[in-house]
C-alpha cells in the first residue's frame, strides 16, 4: 500500500490564483482530514470527511473548499490564494476496525507559498 499520498510536494502561487491540493489513500479509509501547519504552530483542522459525499468544516475552513466524490480521494481547493494561506498542508486518514483504530495516517505534506 502507498498509504496517504499528496501532490504536489511544493507549489508557489501568486495572490489571487487558484489551485487544488490532491490527496489520495489506498487503505479504504472512510475518514479523511485536511490540516495546515504554520511555523511554530500545531496542526489546525481545515475540513474533514466521514465518507464519500460527506464533508464538514474544521477550525479554519475560510478560503478553502473540499469535495469527496470517492472513498480514495479528498482534494482541497484554494480559490483565491492569499499570503495568509502560506503553510504546509497535511492530509490524513483514519481506518476503523482495522486493529489500528483511530490512528491517523498522515501524508508527506504539501508546502505552499503565496506571493
Amino acid at each position, binding site marked *: 500500500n502507498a498509504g496517504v499520498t499528496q501532490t504536489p510536494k511544493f507549489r508557489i502561487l501568486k495572490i489571487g490564483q487558484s489551485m487544488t491540493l490532491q490527496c489520495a489513500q489506498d487503505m479504504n479509509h472512510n475518514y479523511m482530514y485536511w490540516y495546515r501547519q504554520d511555523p511554530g504552530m*500545531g*496542526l489546525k483542522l481545515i475540513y474533514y470527511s466521514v465518507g464519500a459525499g460527506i464533508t464538514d468544516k474544521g477550525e479554519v475552513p475560510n478560503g478553502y473548499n473540499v469535495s469527496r466524490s470517492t472513498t480514495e480521494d479528498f482534494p482541497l481547493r484554494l480559490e483565491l490564494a492569499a499570503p495568509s494561506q502560506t503553510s504546509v498542508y497535511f492530509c490524513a486518514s483514519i481506518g476503523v476496525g482495522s486493529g489500528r483504530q483511530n490512528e491517523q495516517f498522515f501524508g508527506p505534506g504539501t508546502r505552499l507559498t503565496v506571493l
Partner: protein
Amino acid sequence: AQSVTQPDIHITVSEGASLELRCNYSYGATPYLFWYVQSPGQGLQLLLKYFSGDTLVQGIKGFEAEFKRSQSSFNLRKPSVHWSDAAEYFCAVGAFLGQFYFGTGTSLTVIP
C-alpha cells in the same frame, strides 16, 4: 472549548538522560489522547494513544505516557533518550473519529 497546551516550546536533553514532555488538555467529554512525532520535512507518526483503561500506555520507540484525569494531563516520557529521538512532538485530543485538536508542539534537541 477544546484545546491542547504544550507548555514547553523547546527542550534540550543529553543522550541517555530521561525525558518528560508535558501536555494539558481541555475537553468536555472523555478525551481520546494521542502523541505524535514529526521529523523535519516529514508527516506525523503516531507514538501512542489513550482511549480508556490503564492510564499508563506504552508506545513505540520506548515511549510511554500517563493519563491523569484530575490534572487534565497526558505527559510523554522516555527513560533514556537516543540521538534519533530529536524531533518535534505533538500532543492531540480528539473526539471519536471527529475533530482533532493539536498542541503547538515541543521541539526536542538531544546533545551527544
